[in-house]
């Protein structure tokens, strides 16, 4: 594996500010980014990434490549939570297993963006419609997770009672939660307004993008470092899961990417989508629909282990693998 890649990945401002945030927590500095500033940046990033993706989609059109990619995305988002669930059942009750499985089936937009910046730095092209894949991969895992709970959850009384009334809520939470709605809405708006809209919004959604990502990762460092203390409760099994799962998911995604002839850049982004775990949309949905599961388990693994692992080691590692096989 290519050490240069890791170094050039680490030596860029967003990643370094992520470390600065972690450092601040470790030395007990009072540095904090008070609410709702992080929310502002997360809304901005979703809007900017969705809009750019939509514009790119309007440029490329909906070709066969696009459709194949979308199909692959939906397939991976649906099967990852299934096999994750059975792995997790080894040590966990069905509720926690399903909630964590859903988390890993969905994606982390910030990991995706970081991978995009990394490719930009190495001058490797990728297709804008990968953002559409990202948008498509947000939701299926939530539904699969809920199905798993209903099939394998302790078939007991009050679950079944509430089940009927809650399915509507589940689907709404899966497809209409704030993050998904803003992302998908921005894709559609980008698609509708195309070049025209792009010219007007570019200074905001493109030029500010890298800076906003930097600021946001500073906050992510603060939050992730605070979550690390919850890992004690999590135990070795879950930490191992959180480190190996991204590798497994990426390993599974690459052959698929190869078969449908993705470019190297697209393959990296696809691998990153499969390897990353959601720490915003899915946890929010799981808290509402699987209250039996313990949020600190699925949030701390996704945020304090898998997220840093992917942005520091995972991204350059997956690219090394792609370099190896594609050439």
């Amino acid at each position: 594996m290519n050490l240069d890649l890791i170094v050039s990945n680490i030596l860029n401002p967003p990643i370094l500010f992520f470390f600065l945030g972690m450092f601040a927590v470790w030395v007990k500095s009072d540095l904090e980014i008070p609410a709702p500033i992080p929310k502002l940046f997360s809304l901005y990033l979703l809007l900017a990434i969705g809009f750019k993706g939509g514009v790119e989609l309007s440029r490329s059109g909906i070709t066969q490549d696009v459709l194949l990619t979308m199909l692959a995305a939906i397939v991976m988002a649906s099967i990852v939570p299934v096999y994750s669930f059975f792995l997790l059942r080894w040590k966990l009750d069905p509720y926690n297993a399903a909630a964590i499985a859903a988390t890993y089936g969905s994606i982390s937009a910030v990991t995706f963006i970081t991978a995009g910046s990394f490719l930009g730095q190495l001058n490797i092209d990728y297709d804008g419609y990968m953002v559409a894949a990202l948008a498509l991969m947000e939701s299926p895992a939530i539904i699969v997770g809920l199905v798993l709970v209903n099939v394998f959850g302790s078939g007991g009384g009050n679950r079944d009672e509430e089940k009927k009334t809650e399915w509507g809520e589940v689907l709404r939470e899966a497809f209409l939660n704030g993050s998904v709605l803003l992302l998908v809405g921005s894709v559609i708006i980008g698609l509708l307004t195309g070049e025209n809209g792009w010219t007007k919004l570019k200074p905001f959604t493109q030029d500010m993008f890298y800076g906003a990502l930097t600021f946001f990762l500073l906050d992510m460092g603060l939050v992730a470092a605070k979550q690390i203390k919850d890992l004690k409760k999590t135990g070795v099994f879950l930490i191992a899961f959180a480190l190996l799962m991204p590798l497994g998911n990426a390993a599974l995604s690459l052959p698929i990417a190869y078969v449908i002839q993705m470019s190297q850049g697209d393959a990296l982004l696809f691998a990153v989508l499969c390897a990353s775990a959601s720490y915003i949309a899915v946890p929010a949905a799981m808290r509402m629909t699987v209250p039996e599961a313990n949020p600190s388990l699925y949030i701390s693994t996704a945020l304090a282990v898998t997220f840093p692992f992917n942005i520091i080691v995972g991204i350059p590692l997956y690219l090394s693998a792609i370099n190896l096989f594609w050439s």
Partner: protein
Amino acid sequence: MHAVNRMEIMSDAVELGKITAVLNQGDRVTYSILRNVSSHGVRGESVEDSFISSENIYIIAFCPPEQTKGLLEKIRPILNKFGGACFITDATEIKSMRCVGSLS
């Protein structure tokens, strides 16, 4: 000047809609919602409050004493889902004026 009961409810923000739906059923119930509160000891674990993990709310409601029991019976199962807390105090209402403007 008449006696009321004061209810303090701590809960997860996702339950807010259900709790206020119950409070709105009551008659002459007044409540205020404080958001982005850090709560500890309410659920099993102390939950760090951030836009990423959960958000806690704090509701202070005042209601006529004869309604307290009925409202509590409906709020209790909601709190049971996530873990939440509710405390009752006695208080005296001084005056609650209504807004006068309306379509003539």
